[in-house]
């Protein structure tokens, strides 16, 4: 990027919430491959229908508002955003314009170990529209998504490059996952972002361009970088007037942004208060109840892992990136397993096994309780690390508890007399190597260890073996 210019970026992040029912109807809120299976008369806006209100969604929205350090309103109420579109059955979207669940907040997030502070303009609760599938000469409407609860988070223009924007989005995504407010899975279309980008040479902000409906963080990253470059190139070419207040979209295939419409043509949404949902009082008790249920958030967990458990930053980042990992890790600690050992297992063999098998930690056979069977035996030196890894794989392969492989067969040999006998026999049978060792070929030490292991099928206690060998050689 040309250093002459500073880019300024604002984000709008739409995230589908997790809930049993939709936000304004009793239809199921769930991803379904069967079109129009999770719908009700309300979602289809048949004449005479009225909205209900899913209070759990309101509570979750308030929870997010609290986490984002926002101010909460005295009353929850909703507004109608009026416009015609085939994916909007009522002809209006129920949203929050006058009193969002949260305003004027902030969130601290890390960019490569450096703490940044993002300013939150507002976060509001609204309903999603239906989805459209376009074909060559017709389109189909799927109403499953109509009425699904959405949280829209709007930041101030407070980011200056794509790395900052992505780091922020990832932090928010983690919070959604950790609080169970959303699965925040962009593969299921649960996250969509609008990105506002401008460039300037001084403190005056340049012309703002909006890129709408970017559906993954990867694409947000590319869209920002493309748009910054596009604007700078135009400016450098003396054609900055061509940067217009407009709405563009990101084209995945070419990695570019494409003009949709000018902001001058913006629709007047004719907002007014939704009359069918009475005001819902946000009491101090309600806020207290919601605060009490906020779980330990990723950032707090991170601090704890670093400062209390003394994990490396690398391991910590891997573990907190995924709530399942962090939950697994903490479950292990609850079983009194040593943090560093668990972290090694998790970030090493476990995650690589998950990646290889393409499964999630939830589908992983070795629960913390089963993992404990292995780790405990390593800790008390019954088995070696090498053996432990073998047992780990065998247990996963055969779906049998690790302890079944430890009891008899794999038990480490720590009987000194027994080992001494074996070692004396080996030394007697390999006189030439013993002589060479004494002549200075000390690297032959490993040869002797290998022979002991071969004789004991790998079960000899390696520390004890080395001790005896050193003494006898």
């Amino acid at each position, binding site marked *: 990027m040309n250093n002459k210019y500073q880019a300024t970026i604002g984000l709008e992040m739409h995230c589908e919430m997790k809930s049993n029912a939709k936000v304004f109807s009793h239809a199921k809120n769930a991803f379904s491959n069967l079109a129009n299976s999770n719908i009700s008369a309300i979602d289809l806006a048949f*004449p005479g229908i009225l909205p209900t209100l899913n209070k759990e969604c309101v509570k979750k929205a308030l929870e997010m508002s609290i986490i984002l350090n926002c101010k909460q309103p005295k009353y929850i109420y909703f507004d109608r955003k*009026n416009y015609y579109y085939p994916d909007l059955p009522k002809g209006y979207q129920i949203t929050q314009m006058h009193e969002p669940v949260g305003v004027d907040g902030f969130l601290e997030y890390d960019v490569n170990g450096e703490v940044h502070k993002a300013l939150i303009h507002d976060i509001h609760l609204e309903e999603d529209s239906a989805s459209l599938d376009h074909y060559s000469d017709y389109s189909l409407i799927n109403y499953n998504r109509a009425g699904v609860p959405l949280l829209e988070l709007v930041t101030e223009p407070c980011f200056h490059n794509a790395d900052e924007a992505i780091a922020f989005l990832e932090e928010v995504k983690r919070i959604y996952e950790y609080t169970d407010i959303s699965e925040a899975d962009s593969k299921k279309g649960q996250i969509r972002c609008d990105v506002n980008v401008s460039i300037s040479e001084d403190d005056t902000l340049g012309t703002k361009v909006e890129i709408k409906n970017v559906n993954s963080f990867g694409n947000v990253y590319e869209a920002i970088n493309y748009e910054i470059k596009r604007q700078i190139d135009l400016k450098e070419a003396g054609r900055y007037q061509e940067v217009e207040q407009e709405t563009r979209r990101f084209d995945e295939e070419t990695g570019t942004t494409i003009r949709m419409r000018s902001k001058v043509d913006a629709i007047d949404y004719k907002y007014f208060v939704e009359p069918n949902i009475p005001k819902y009082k946000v009491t101090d008790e309600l806020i207290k109840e919601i605060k009490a249920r906020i779980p330990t958030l990723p950032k707090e967990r991170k601090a704890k892992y670093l400062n209390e458990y003394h994990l490396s930053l690398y391991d910590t980042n891997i573990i907190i990136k995924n709530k399942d990992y962090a939950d697994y890790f903490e479950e292990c600690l609850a079983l009194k397993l040593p943090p560093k050992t668990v972290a090694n297992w998790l970030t090493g063999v476990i995650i690589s096994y998950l990646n290889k098998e393409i499964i999630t930690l939830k589908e992983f056979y070795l629960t913390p309780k089963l993992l404990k069977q292995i780790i405990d035996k390593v800790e008390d030196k019954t088995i070696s690390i090498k053996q432990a890894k073998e047992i780990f794989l065998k247990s996963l392969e055969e779906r049998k508890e690790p302890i079944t492989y430890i009891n008899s067969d794999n038990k480490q040999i720590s009987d000194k007399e027994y080992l001494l006998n074996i070692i004396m026999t080996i030394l007697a049978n390999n006189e030439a190597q013993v002589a060479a060792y004494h002549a200075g070929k000390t690297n032959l030490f490993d040869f002797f260890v290998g022979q002991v292991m071969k004789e004991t099928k790998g079960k000899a206690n390696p520390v004890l073996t080395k001790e005896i060998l050193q003494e006898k050689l």
Partner: protein
Amino acid sequence: MDSEIIKLHEMLIKKEITSQELIKESLAKSHEVQEKCNAFVTILDDALAPEVTDDYLSGIPFGIKDNYATKGILSTGSSNTLKNYVPFFDATAVCNLKNHGAVAVNKTALDEFGMGGTGTTCHTGAVKNPWDQKRMAGGSSAGSATAVALGVYPYALGSDTGDSIRKPAAFCGIVGYKPTYGMISRYGLFPFASSMDTCGVLTRTVKDAAIVVDAMKGKDAKDLTSWDSKNINLYKSLDGQVKGKKLFYIKELVDMANYQNASDELIKHLKNFQEVIKKCQEIGLIVEEVSLDLTLLKAIPSVYVCLSCAEATSNMSNLTGIIFGPRGEGKTPEEIIMNHRTKGFSPLIKRRFVIGSYVLQKENQERYFLNAARLRRIIVDKIKELFKTYDGLILPVSTGVAPYLDGSKDELVKDDTAPLEEHLQIANFGGFPSITIPSGHIFSLPVGVNITGNCYDDANVLNIAYALEKSLGFKNLKQGGKHE
């Protein structure tokens, strides 16, 4: 079918008549009335007699305004945009009546989606006044009012956003009752202006109105604005004891001096009101004159137009012809939607949509829509303040009798009689219970008087109307002037 509900119920219980006979009579009358007054969208010739139980309403026929969703039965809102629409669910109010054993025999015509006061804008044509077929029935519950006045059945459902139950009731010489907002669930009622829409009933006696609303009302999980009225039994509350209850009327609306060039009709109408006041006093009611700011009163129609049109344009945005209703022609969704709406709505409704959109536009919203909302609040606060002293507000309905059909236009704002014509909208602004009863005749045509009380005070309002009805002597008034 000329009788009151209790009488019909007794006859059914004593087996002097069967429900099937009542239905047959009601259907025969429906066809007569259709011929004469064009009151219905659908006549349910295959209506079946339900079991007669202890319930007052069981086995007795009734009519449903065609803006209530009825399962498996055409429900048009009297609009071409829904001319083929058959809902798959019942409105809660209809469902409640069915549970009481009531049997629907027809769907009645209305001004398209309830947006009119004349009964002339139905997609099936104008409804004619039962007393004089050259005159209008009043709207929007035109078919319901006409059918009840002609004795098709003892009651029909109406809906009231500005005066849509209470004005046609007056023009047809019957009782029209709009309960407190939210007393009856609106689920399944096609919306006009959600913050003012109220389900209600048209009957020939106050007692019948009480019985029917007792059966229709109740908190409904499907309507968040509905409220629990378990403790209210309107019928049992009718004891006629009104001595010492206080009513007020608004001086500016009924003072002859305020109407220069007053027509003979208006003079007679206001005189009728003075007689009503005397009757009130005879039965021990205290009636006082209260003076209100005429500017505020004159604002009522404009406030109503701004707010109701704004809500209506949004509420009816679901009528696109994509999910239900006749599909419009066109290559793009926009064309399909536009053609459906252009073809389907009558010019009056389109005019209201334009007004609604205009007052909601960003640059106009503060000046029109939000100022109207503020004025609504000021008017309601003023009336509520008076309800601390008074049990109710009593005023004449409209400026006289039902107007002639030809030459009538549904003008949105009229001349200096506008506040008198439109004051019933106050009850919709505040969600107040409000009832119209017949109060006499001018030129052999009925006129009515209205009583409006404070929210949740329905029992008190109905009891006052009940006592006054008795005193006035127009109970169970039917076309032709014969009454009990």
